């Protein structure tokens, strides 16, 4: 991704993150105040012990009334603190869930509006990850790390304040004695993180190995390679266990180190306190209180190293999320759109270059170079060329799924950059190579083109393309479920659905990206028939893989490595004896039986 975000510091990232998700900021001061009050509930006991010892157990005996009074105050304070803590946690939870929801929706919208150039195959996974796993790191953070910051952070602050107010010398002794713990923890934490990284990647490896055994079961059987793959999977599983055990062992030393430091710190505090004695203004109660407070102070530290790690992960996740929001949406909507003339539309391609964007701001090698062609309204054109010649990309530019890097594409004499997106989608429609169907019924997939159509209208569209006989072969007709990505239908049938879907939009320009996959004979007949009906009266540009399509077209454009090398009717190009005639010859050879 083109990520200016990688230059942002942690503070900058958090700042921008809060701006992107304003729900986080609203009322945060109050939440913090409530958390502080809540933390007070957890230092009530040490203070009460101190007060009781110093005021309740005097030399003259046990002042039960004083103790009862103190306990009463403490009780009220605890109840108040409990309410405050609950409210603070609830507020943080609500605000963060609200913020994450908002962030997700912003991401959905933004990503859907990105240029198709930003949706290349290798990036698709990354985009999905931004909305799912990266936002999820933030969610995890707010559920644990953020809460820990709020509750434990305020607790440590408060404990430190109480310690300082009792006796600053002892407090400083406690802080100094405990300080090395932070260093130790940080060290161990670093090892722990890399150990868990390894364990996680080994875990992924186990999943891969096992999925091979399962998904490749037929191949493994057919080649009697079972033992080999079982060995590999078991080895992966053993390695996973080994690395989790190693990580667990490191973790086993991390947490008790807090215990060890606690006893040393308590000893230091008691030792120094006893040395200084009552003359320094210390009381027995304060001493006992100190013992309690020291434990309270050190309790969250071990957890805090984990929280710090999680915070870093969350900030990194936030940085990536913001990175996506920084990608400009495209192609941008024109400020003053020009409406397209009615009726069939001509397509003009004028000196067009195009490159896909990769990481950073560099462009990949150009896919189209200096391409020009004029396609009159109503003409049937086939674009041919080998894989990688740029034919699919050319289709995408005509549909303005992306803008050319240089040059212009116009439809009906209007540059695409001046046409409102909604109008363009209505007039120029693409039937993609591997038509994508959403999970659901055929009817639902058709409605995707025009949401409010009745079943009767959908049926009309089916009849218009002469596909009734096909639909009747399906178990539940138009209500047949297509499965995930349309997997329940054959590749050819998915194309048929896509053709009906396109016809519902009634476009002036039709862009057909032919399927490469083999289609059975009957479906092939139906496809050809439906296409002919759909193409009637429309400017049709077919990105052709089958040369029969090219032979039927009014005109053939031959692309080779991004350049237009031949342009003319089928028969003329055959006679010219160039690239196209050679392609055609080998295709004829393959589809004719020798008898």
């Amino acid at each position: 991704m083109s990520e200016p975000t990688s230059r942002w510091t942690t503070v900058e990232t958090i700042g921008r993150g809060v701006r992107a998700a304003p729900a986080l900021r609203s009322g945060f001061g109050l939440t913090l105040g409530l958390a502080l009050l809540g933390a007070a509930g957890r230092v009530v006991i040490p203070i009460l012990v101190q007060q009781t010892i110093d005021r309740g157990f005097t030399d003259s005996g046990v002042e039960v009334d004083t103790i009862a009074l103190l306990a009463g105050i403490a009780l009220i304070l605890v109840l108040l603190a409990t309410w405050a803590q609950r409210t603070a946690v609830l507020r943080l939870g609500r605000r963060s869930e609200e913020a994450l929801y908002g962030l997700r929706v912003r991401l959905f919208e933004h990503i859907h509006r990105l240029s198709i150039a930003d949706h290349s195959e290798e990036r698709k996974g990354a985009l999905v990850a931004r909305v799912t796993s990266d936002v999820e790191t933030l969610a995890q953070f707010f559920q644990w790390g953020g809460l820990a910051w709020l509750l434990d952070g305020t607790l440590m602050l408060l404990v430190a304040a109480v310690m300082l107010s009792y006796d600053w010398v002892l407090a400083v002794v406690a802080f100094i004695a405990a300080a090395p713990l932070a260093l130790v923890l940080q060290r161990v934490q670093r090892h722990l993180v890399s150990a868990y990284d390894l364990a996680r990647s080994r875990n992924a490896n186990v999943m891969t190995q096992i999925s091979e055994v399962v998904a490749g079961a037929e191949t493994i059987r057919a080649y009697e390679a079972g033992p080999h793959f079982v060995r590999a999977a078991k080895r992966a599983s053993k390695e996973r266990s080994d690395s989790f055990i190693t990580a667990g062992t490191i973790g086993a030393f991390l947490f008790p180190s807090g215990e060890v430091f606690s006893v040393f710190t308590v000893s230091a505090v008691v030792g120094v306190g006893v040395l200084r004695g009552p003359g320094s203004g210390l009381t027995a109660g304060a001493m006992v209180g100190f013992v309690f407070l020291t434990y309270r102070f050190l309790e969250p530290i071990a957890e805090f190293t984990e929280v710090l790690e999680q915070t870093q992960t969350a900030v990194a996740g936030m940085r990536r999320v913001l990175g996506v929001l920084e990608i400009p949406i495209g192609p941008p909507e024109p400020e003053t759109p020009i409406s397209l003339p009615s009726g069939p539309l001509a397509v003009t391609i004028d000196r067009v270059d195009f490159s896909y964007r990769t990481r950073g701001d560099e462009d990949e090698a150009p896919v189209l170079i200096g391409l020009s062609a004029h396609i009159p309204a109503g003409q049937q054109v086939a674009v041919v060329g080998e894989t990688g010649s740029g034919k699919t990309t050319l289709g995408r530019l005509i549909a303005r799924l992306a803008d050319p890097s240089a040059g212009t594409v116009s439809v009906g004499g209007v540059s695409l950059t001046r046409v409102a997106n909604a109008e363009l989608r209505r007039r120029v429609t693409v039937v993609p190579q591997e038509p994508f169907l959403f999970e659901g019924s055929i009817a639902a997939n058709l409605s995707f083109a025009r949401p409010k159509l009745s079943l009767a209208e959908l049926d009309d569209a089916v009849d218009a393309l002469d596909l009734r006989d096909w639909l009747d072969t399906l178990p539940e007709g138009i209500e047949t479920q297509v499965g995930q990505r349309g997997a329940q239908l054959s590749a050819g049938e998915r194309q048929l659905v896509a053709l009906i879907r396109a016809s519902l939009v009634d476009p002036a320009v039709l862009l057909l990206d032919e399927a490469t996959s083999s289609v059975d004979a009957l479906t092939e007949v139906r496809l050809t028939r439906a296409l002919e009906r759909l193409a009637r009266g429309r400017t049709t540009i077919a990105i052709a893989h089958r040369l029969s399509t090219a032979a039927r077209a009014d005109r053939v454009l031959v692309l080779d490595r991004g350049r237009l090398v031949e342009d003319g009717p089928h028969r003329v190009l055959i006679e010219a004896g160039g690239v196209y005639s050679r392609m055609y010859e080998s295709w004829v050879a393959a589809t004719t039986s020798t008898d």
Partner: protein
Amino acid sequence: MRQALRLVRALLRHHHRTFFVAVGGAAVFAACTVYSAVVVRMITDEVIDPRFRRGTVSSSKVVVVLGALILLGCVRAAGVVVRRTFAGRTQWRAAESISAEVIDRLSEQAVPWHRSQSTGDLVTGAGVDAEAATAVLSPLPFASGVVVLVGLSSVLLVATDLWLGLAAVAVFPLLIVISVKYQLRVEAHYDTAQDELGRLSAAVHESFDGVAVVKSFGAERRETERLAVIASRLREARLGAVRLRSTFEALLDALPTVVNILLLVGGAYRVRAGAMTVGELTSCIYLFTLLVFPLRLIGYTLSEVPHSLAGWNRIRALLDQPVAPNPADTLLQGVDRNIGVAELHFAHDGEREVLAGVDAVIEGGRTTAVVGATGSGKTTLLHLIAGLIPAGRGTITVPTGGIRLVFQEPFLFASTIRENITMGEDFTEHAIDAALAVAEAGFVHDLPDGLDTEVGERGVSLSGGQRQRLALARALVRRPAVLLLDDTTSALDPNTEAKVLANLRATLGNTTVVVVASRPSTISLADDVLFLDGGVVVAHGRHDELMQNVPRYRRLIEAFEHDRAALDADADADATSGGGV
């Protein structure tokens, strides 16, 4: 509960030793925790009190008491280290055993079983469920330690002061019940949230995959709204957990504090009555604070149990399924090089018969094309001959010397090209190169790492045609007596396909080749054609004979050539007159 015990017993079958070491560590921790309360009493009564109320304390006393505190802390920490280390070891070794058992079972099951299962479920079973099932082992030693802790603390509390002790001990069950209830309820919320997250991920995946369609129909806003609805369900599920958590966490924090305050008041009366010292009271309160976290752990452990049980039950369900006999064992060994098929029946799920009595002798050393309309059972016939699926009725006789099937959709493993061809067997570099050459897979040598190039999961980094050629090389390198090709060259461009077929003819002199084909060019290269229709062999003979004598066959071939026919009529009527039409 009985189920949970059975689960733990099953998990510990091979790992009880490490487990009991972990429990030992937890017990040491518990004992030290309780004893540290005694030390706190000593600090209060024998160090702080004498120094601050009476002015002096012997320094040796201070050293002894603080030394005891430090020693105890270190032993206690050591107990934690032992417990955690060995608990992790127990869990992961148990997970390893279970995974191994599942992996063995997966490889034992025959193809029909695999076809009836969902890949995702099986992978989850072996990978994730093993971890889930054993997850309960991780907190279990600590939980057992907590039981020791509660027991010892109760004894100490009651011994220190009968009435105060009893009052404190009475609170333990209450705390345990609340925390167990809470954990179970909050886990249910997290499970719901997890499901919603799964649904959201799937929807996002689908939506972004279909981004071209979304854009083509200007449906960006509609898609965003659809996803927003799913995201809002996730938010609601999480908010449910937040609500529960905020209340219970606050309650579980407050309850011990309140009890502590009451203990202090009660204790004050006891101290006044001379029944206990200030130090003893302090140590009671100290002990009670120490117990809060471990008590909550019991709730946590119990909340793990349903997850572990669910994982374990899924694994059991997988392991308890019977292993069907290997269909390859039902193939008869012939005396000659022919493949004989007699009265062969086959039906998917016992419904409509795909093969309804196929009889044929496929001659050894020749190339036979199996031709038929979509759904005529061509692929099924090949899979039966390869011994992947069992016949319903009838016999199949095959020659010795190995049968290799190349699938219609080639499966490549996520490793190197070399691994994909050898699949763990030893082949010389020369043999591999030769196989690649016949399969026209010379592109391998142009790849940056040649044979050692990683192909990615399912071979994603390669094109369909490249995958098919590697799958072909995988079969060829094994020099089988019978080569079964299931429309193996469909994704190749016509030029390459012709070359591959020519290579096969040139190099496979003695090999019996059975090829499912739909391209006329492929069919015409075969010596014989086996024409399947309606589940039986309609004709078996040379292509041109069948074209002449079998009208149904001719119509099918003409349909295959329809594409060409349309072209001839439309554009190029006289260019190929006298062709196949």
